């Protein structure tokens, strides 16, 4: 059995009784990357020399280690800054940003637990995209079938975990960017409650929606990783000052008497939810019934407005956030500018890709004089209605369950020419960001023809990640979807 099939808890036991060393784990990670990343293209930058050196040092401290993440090789989405290690955000604009000055708070926290960062993971440019095709470098491929997209924007983060290149990774989720690629790649991805995890050092896309979260192979590992990164951070003024529970405690409880809400909009043909996905979700609900939970159909009546509201709000915030890329302090600068304004314009136009320009344009328009009330403020009001839909359902139910995405992964190139079709893919994940509640995707089946994973989305109340873990863990223990692995070459030991 490959080392990648062990859980974090099993790995710690093997490190302690010297069956395995940190160096072997880190080497296994790089061996697998060497074997499969030509096909998968999950990594943008590798940190091999430093990682192997750190592994050697950690091997001398194994006896004192007492944390589930000790010595574990990880990957970080390339929109979280890593001190001294190139951070590109998947953008040509930051192709020369080789020497970031500090670590993002999440990176700092993982360093303190002695994880080993093997590299930075590919993504849609500035996290704008649902397929990884908007990366300025190359498109990450779905490990289950490399003709298909891995999802986005955290496509590299999900594909690297599915392809056993790393044990876990961090992604970020603004409208589904952790959950959708987790669903497409058959792994476990959590978007925490807005404010639970510090955004300090996460290159901002839409500040009122962005949230960092863990991507893992199992629910239990996911809980351990969230434990390490959650918590108040004085460096992020939107970070919530709440007490952090012990998430793994939630895994000990069952789901008897749990009340599940199933939004009818999330199973509807009108939202483009396909038959196989609907069947997989209904089969999952049957599993929950057998485990003693009950479910009822409910309505989130404003769901169909979420995508429109989201694109106005997220693009408006992005147009302001991306103003910092001006070619003065970091990033690329045009070589032929007449004056400063010209330099700004040309540097940005040369450095940004089409989707990023489109969203900056949309956001600038929605915020511009004469249009602000009609578009931006209108979208903020619709956001209130969407948030109220969730509040109302959570008065009577513990969790909401539905599909993560309307369909399994689509083919590379299939939707790239039509922005609106691409946006519609996020219809079931976007409302969760607008409401700020936590959402998680776990594997719940495979499509018949292409054998692609299907994701089950579990949505909870604000700061109730514990219930999400309890519900996800119960399903995982009752099924074996998480034990399937893509047929790629690579490490066997």
């Amino acid at each position, binding site marked *: 059995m490959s080392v990648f099939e062990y859980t974090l808890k099993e790995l710690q036991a093997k490190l302690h009784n010297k069956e395995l060393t940190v160096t072997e784990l880190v080497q296994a990670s790089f061996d697998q990357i060497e074997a499969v990343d030509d096909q998968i293209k999950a990594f943008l930058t590798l940190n091999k020399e430093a990682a192997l050196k750190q592994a050697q040092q950690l091997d001398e401290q194994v006896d004192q280690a007492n944390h589930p993440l000790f010595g574990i090789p990880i990957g970080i989405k390339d929109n979280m800054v890593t001190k001294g290690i190139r951070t590109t955000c998947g953008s040509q604009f930051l192709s020369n940003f080789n020497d970031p000055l500090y670590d993002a708070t999440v990176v700092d926290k993982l360093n303190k637990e002695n994880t080993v960062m093997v590299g930075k993971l590919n993504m849609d440019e500035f996290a704008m995209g649902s397929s990884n095709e908007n990366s300025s470098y190359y498109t990450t491929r779905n490990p289950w079938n490399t003709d298909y997209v891995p999802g986005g924007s955290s496509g590299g983060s999900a594909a690297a975990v599915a392809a056993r290149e790393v044990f876990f990774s961090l992604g970020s989720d603004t409208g589904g960017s952790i959950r959708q690629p987790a669903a497409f790649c058959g792994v476990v991805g959590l978007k925490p409650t*807005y404010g639970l995890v510090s955004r300090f050092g996460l290159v901002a896309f839409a500040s*009122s929606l962005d949230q960092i979260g863990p991507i893992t192979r199992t629910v239990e590992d996911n809980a351990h990783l969230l434990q390490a990164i959650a918590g108040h951070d004085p460096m992020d003024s939107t970070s919530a000052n709440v007490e952090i529970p012990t998430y793994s405690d939630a895994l000990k409880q069952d789901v008897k008497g749990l009340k599940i809400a199933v939004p009818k909009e999330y199973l509807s043909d009108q939202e483009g939810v396909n038959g196989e996905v609907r069947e997989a979700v209904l089969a999952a609900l049957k599993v929950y019934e057998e485990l003693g939970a009950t479910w009822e159909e409910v309505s989130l009546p404003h769901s169909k407005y979420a995508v*429109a509201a989201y694109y106005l709000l997220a693009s408006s915030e992005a147009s302001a956030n991306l103003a910092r890329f001006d070619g*003065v302090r970091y990033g690329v600068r045009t070589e032929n500018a007449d004056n*400063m*304004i010209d330099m700004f314009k040309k540097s940005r136009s040369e450095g*940004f890709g089409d989707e990023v320009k489109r969203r900056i344009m949309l956001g600038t328009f929605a915020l511009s004089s004469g249009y602000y009330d009609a*578009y931006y403020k209108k979208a903020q009001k619709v956001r209130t209605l969407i948030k109220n839909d969730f509040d109302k359902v959570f008065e009577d139910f513990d969790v909401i369950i539905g599909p993560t995405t309307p369909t399994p992964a689509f083919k590379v190139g299939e939707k790239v020419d039509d922005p609106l079709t691409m946006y519609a893919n996020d219809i079931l994940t976007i409302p969760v960001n607008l409401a700020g509640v936590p959402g998680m995707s776990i594997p719940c089946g495979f499509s018949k023809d292409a054998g692609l994973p299907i994701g089950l989305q579990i949505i909870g109340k604000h700061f109730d990640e514990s219930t999400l873990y309890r519900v996800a863990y119960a399903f995982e223990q009752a099924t074996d979807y998480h034990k399937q692995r893509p047929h790629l070459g690579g490490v066997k030991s």
Partner: protein
Amino acid sequence: MAEISKQQVKHVAHLARLAITDQEVEVMTKQLGDIIHYAELLNDLDTSQVEPTTHVLDLKNVMRKDEPRKWIDREDALKNAPDQHDGQFRVPSILE
């Protein structure tokens, strides 16, 4: 709500500090027009009595003590800059 014109697209590009070619103006006018047309779906909803949500957490101004502390120094701040001179960021002329 009106359609977006090529003239507006050029104006917005200027506000966003993007240089766009004539061909990009064509494409952008169509694509932005489509997205804005789609967004008009929101007008089906009467929101006259609804408060806007800017942020989902109940946070007001978050203040900390105004105390000096160590942060990056000048040398570090300059090391990723495309151009620098005498310890400062250098840019093309601002005035004609």
